[in-house]
């Protein structure tokens, strides 16, 4: 696998998610304008912060006139789960120069990570492929970044006239299902999946998506706590 193939693999893998992300981007643009954020700032937010649910929260808190520290803290909490993705890909990026690490960290969203991780995990460490594997993550990250910018732009410019409620957002959970289900191949992984799912549903009422992070942690613990089958 050369770098072009790796990049296009990442790009192709993230494409179905753009279907689900695009409506979110459009709605974000509309919500940002409604919160009194100027169009230019709303667009810049998509590059500077580049985090879907955090940008929604930001727009709401700005609209409500919340203080800076509270808003920044809330955005940090909402994005806390990205630290898990960082830990997950860190060993695979260890050999890269710093500029690559910075670029890939900037692009590390739920969707880019989800699209790339099955392919990254399939690459054996120290194999010839592993030297180019980061191009997969760059492909999925770039694809999502470009799609998010376009969707935000559409929301800011045409906004309310675009058809909403087509149900396209459902593409996101469906793609996550397509990625996760084939990965669940052991008792430990079943335990991790069930604990994370149950935790996320039970803690969905917690503010700033903290429940999501706790549920994911519960999934990790359930995974290693599960005794391995004795043959």
């Amino acid at each position, binding site marked *: 696998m050369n770098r072009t193939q790796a990049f296009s693999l990442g790009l192709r893998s993230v494409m179905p998610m753009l279907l689900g992300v695009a409506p979110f981007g459009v709605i974000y643009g509309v919500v940002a304008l409604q919160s009194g954020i100027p169009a230019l700032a709303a667009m810049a937010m998509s590059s500077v912060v580049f985090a879907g649910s955090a940008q929604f929260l930001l727009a709401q808190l700005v609209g409500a006139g919340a203080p800076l520290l509270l808003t920044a803290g809330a955005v940090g909490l909402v994005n806390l789960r990205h630290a898990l993705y960082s830990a997950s890909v860190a060993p695979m990026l260890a050999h890269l120069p710093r500029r690559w690490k910075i670029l890939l960290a900037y692009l590390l969203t739920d969707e880019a990570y989800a699209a790339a991780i099955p392919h990254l995990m399939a690459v054996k460490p120290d194999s010839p492929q592993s030297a180019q594997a980061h191009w997969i993550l760059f492909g999925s990250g770039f694809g999502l970044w470009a799609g998010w910018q376009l969707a935000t732009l559409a929301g800011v410019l045409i906004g309310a006239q675009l058809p909403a409620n087509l149900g396209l957002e459902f593409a996101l959970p469906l793609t996550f299902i397509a990625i996760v*289900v084939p990965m669940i191949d052991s008792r430990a992984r079943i335990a991790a999946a069930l604990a994370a799912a149950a935790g996320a549903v039970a803690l969905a009422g917690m503010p700033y998506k903290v429940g999501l992070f706790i549920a994911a942690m519960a999934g990790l613990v359930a995974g290693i706590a599960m005794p391995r089958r004795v043959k």
Partner: protein
Amino acid sequence: MNLWWLMLVCGVITFAIRYSFIAAEGHYQPPTWFRRLLPFVPIAALMALTAPELLLVHGEIVLGGSNPRLWAGLVAIIVAALWRNTLLTIGCGFLALYLLQRS
């Protein structure tokens, strides 16, 4: 002006979270249990993101016929388990959602 500062602070925080472990790699010696957690990250994180989308309607658990997303999601889970094909999974999930919402 305040808005641009806020944006910058939030951008830095978001980036710092995403960069944290990537930057620290090679500069610290994580305990072995930490490395054993990592293979479970995709499953745990993506299940946590997905389950509420299927089970919750306006924050309440809804299991009956009035929650078509749950049943469409279950169709997608079965299709994904049997055929391991992303586009087929998404297609069947949307088809199920469409049929359930019509009925």
